[in-house]
């Protein structure tokens, strides 16, 4: 009945100088769930993401993905295993067109792209699947525009489309809704729910109503440590969480 864990950490720790930004965190993320990571500012959420995707190397502890220890892999290789992240500050390739942004991700799947002697017309084959992905996120009308000229909310949508192009098993989203207007928030939440159908998602988000609506399970971090874990109902009653994150009189 319980789903298999897809990603687990054991005592994950990183210290910057003497400061432990993430301190002995053991997480278990189950296959096919939406798992939210919340916590006050500076709790170590982004740092946690950086550790999981190997943009930072942990001081100690281990990371297990599908039963395999991936603690010593490099960032690019993590992505190749199917764990793909988004960034807190939106990350697109500003000088490539919207279509090319997605194509770059599709292109990776055909293996290493070291073939500098071939014409880029070889990439035409990816245009169709790329357009399909753009349609999914409602960007089909912008395909030819340089990504840098997209409005903020659409950049995030493009980022998601690019990420989905890799067909990852697991998505790590860092504040996907930050800075979005109400309209976009709805659209994005729907999109996240849609892509979660056959994937696992770990997400950091401050927008609690969305967190409440979407996530199956929530872990609360504070000062680098795991404070509480559970579903939204139990978390929101936890006095420690109220004290550290929600604040009193929340409602």
């Amino acid at each position: 009945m319980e789903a298999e864990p897809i990603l687990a950490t054991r005592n994950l720790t990183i210290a910057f100088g003497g400061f432990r930004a993430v301190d002995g965190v053991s997480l278990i993320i189950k296959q096919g769930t939406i798992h939210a990571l919340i916590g006050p500012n500076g709790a170590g959420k982004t740092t946690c993401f950086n550790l999981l995707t190997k943009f930072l190397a942990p001081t100690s502890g281990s990371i297990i993905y599908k039963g395999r220890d991936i603690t010593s892999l490099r960032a690019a290789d993590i992505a190749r295993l199917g764990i793909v992240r988004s960034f807190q500050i939106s990350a697109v390739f500003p000088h490539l067109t919207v279509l090319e942004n997605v194509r770059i991700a599709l292109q990776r799947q055909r293996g290493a792209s070291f073939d500098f002697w071939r014409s880029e017309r070889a990439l035409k084959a990816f245009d169709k699947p790329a357009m399909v992905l753009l349609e999914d996120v409602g960007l089909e009308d912008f395909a030819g525009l340089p990504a840098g000229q997209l409005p903020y909310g659409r950049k995030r949508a493009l980022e998601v489309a690019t990420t989905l192009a890799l067909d990852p098993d697991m998505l790590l989203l860092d504040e996907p809704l930050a800075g979005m207007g109400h309209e976009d928030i709805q659209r994005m939440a729907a999109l996240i729910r849609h892509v979660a159908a056959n994937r696992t998602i770990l997400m950091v988000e401050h927008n609690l109503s969305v967190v409440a609506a979407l996530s199956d399970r929530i872990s609360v971090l504070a000062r680098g440590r795991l404070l509480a874990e559970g579903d939204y109902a139990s978390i929101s009653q936890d006095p420690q969480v109220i004290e550290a994150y929600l604040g009193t009189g929340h409602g």
Partner: protein
Amino acid sequence: MGDVASHSLLRVEGLDAWYGESHVLHGLGFEVRDGEVVTLLGRNGAGKTTTLRAIIGILRQREGSIQFAGHEIIRASSDAIARLGIGYCPEERGIFASLSVRENLLLPPVIRPGGLSLDQIFALFPNLRERVDSQGTKLSGGEQQMLAIARILRTGARLLLLDEPTEGLAPVIIKQIGRTIHELKRQGFTIVLVEQNFRFAAQLADRHYIVEQGRVVDMIENAVLDRNIDKLHAYLGV
């Protein structure tokens, strides 16, 4: 709004602004009275940030009239404008990587007495006290936002321009900031607040201006907000 004019601290009229070729503000106008908290609400890309940047003078391609405390500042350079008593907290926070948290905090020169003391600031944002010697950009996203607000509270500016100060902050901090703004208002600061989160804005503001495509299309008194909530939702597309 004629009765307002006599006390107005900031008065923007017929403001046009451009980024290079693209014309972003089209004759935007609003007023802020001394001691008021006023919000600019609007969808993404409406021109709220641009308005603030035009007022403080960072965006130089601007025309129209901006009067602050009786001075016409549309031609002034941003340092001169700031010295007249305007504090600006940018959307992107603008924390300096080469400065420690303390140095970031002490950077804006004090232009007038009446700002908060360091102790008051640390009482408001305890996170900052802990990390006071670390590098500014090593703070978490939310901590940086606190720092960005904190540093203009010291200067004694009478008018604060806050661009989405709650973005990316934990609820507990948002509440703190709400209390802070309240307190600042009580102390006589005048505040222009750009917000997405109108629930937050509603607890603080006296009036709301709705910005749409570079124009102010409506003004709603906070007192009558409840009655106009549907109209507001329509404007913001909620």
